[in-house]
């Protein structure tokens, strides 16, 4: 398994990750270990960047919801129940986008759960709403699912390489 072994720079012997010296020739493995660790950090940061993409999706949902609140409010004359519900959903997504900066994985999981629940519940009371903005809904769900998948990989990778 590449990346899980340290190749001795002197004799090419494959040493276990925990070793500081080559078991075959006694050469120091310090430089190889540093390089491998750096490569792992870079790979982990790529995965983390994929998780952070959830933030864009959450921000867009919040912005669309906020715009919807204003438009619906203008049409209905700012009916208290509708406006407060829609504004609360917008606030939840802005809050999730903010949380995404420190904990993107958890924010993506919560974002997916809230987003799907809100739209399924809306569809039950108004079936025509399901088709409204369906492309955006599918994209948002896809981005969040990919972010969650990358989050799982990121955690598995860090534990496998002992980066915790």
């Amino acid at each position, binding site marked *: 398994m590449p990346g899980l072994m340290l190749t001795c720079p002197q004799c090419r012997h494959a040493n276990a990750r925990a070793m500081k010296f080559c*078991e075959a020739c006694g*050469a120091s493995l310090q430089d190889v270990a540093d390089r491998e660790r750096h490569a792992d950090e870079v790979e982990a940061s790529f995965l983390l960047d994929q998780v952070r993409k959830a933030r864009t999706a959450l921000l867009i949902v919040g912005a669309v919801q906020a715009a919807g609140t204003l438009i619906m409010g203008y049409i209905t004359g700012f009916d208290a129940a509708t406006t407060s*519900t829609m504004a609360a959903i917008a606030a939840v997504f802005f809050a999730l986008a903010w949380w995404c900066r420190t904990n993107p*994985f958890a924010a993506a999981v919560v974002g997916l*759960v809230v987003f799907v*629940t809100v739209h399924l519940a809306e569809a039950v009371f108004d079936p025509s709403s399901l088709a409204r903005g369906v492309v955006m809904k599918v994209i948002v769900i896809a981005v969040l699912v990919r972010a969650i998948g990358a989050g*799982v990989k990121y955690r598995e990778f860090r534990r496998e390489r002992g980066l915790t």
Partner: protein
Amino acid sequence: MVYRPAPSFCGQCGAAWPLGSRTCGTCGQARPASEPAPAVEPGVGRGLFSALLLYFVLLTTLLAPLALAGHLPFDSTEGVLGTFDIVLAIDAVLVVLWSIVHWRDIVPRLRTVGAPRYWVIALAAVPLTVGLAEANVWVVQETIGGAAIANEAMYAAAGYSFVAAMLAIAVQPALIEELAFRGVIFARLQPLLDGRTTVIVTAVMFMVVHLALLSLVFLLSMGLLLGWLRLRSQSLYPGMVLHLLHNTTVLALSWP
């Protein structure tokens, strides 16, 4: 076991390895028998999928009767509550199924009783959670003005006995919701998140699945408290007792 040839030099200090020895003669380090096992338990991703699937399946069982309202006897209170009883039974079966599949997560939590201080906290919290629930609904009605749906009074009007209403409103949720949210979902999320974040995520799921816009603030607080009890006590029982007593008290207060 991975085959590894006998070392010529110690991997920890670089000194020549004594022939036939199990430990290094210079630094005394024992040689690992094989590759250290990866610290990650396999299948955390699949476990997360299972937890999210349980959430969405439960959500579907709650939404399906509303979507099919035209085909169901929703013109009478008895019809609505009868349908809801069937949903509760289906949810109970589903959650038990999930618990059996993830029995390794559930059984240790059912064999732990929890430290007495969490039982004290659970019992002491009942008046607070009941007060918060009532205050939450009151504030929302005063500010936004939503129609109050007195679930509890509906059961009395439909001719349910107090015990039958308690089964539907207090016993089933206390057992099944706790088993689902603080049992299966909590245990599946915990390897991926830290304890505090797991409490927050399960609390939000618990809040959203209730589909009760008027009680969101209360439901989130209740979810956080129940999750905290589960995290600290390592047991499902204090949360189940708090949930049972809370729901029973709310039912008793509004029972005519």
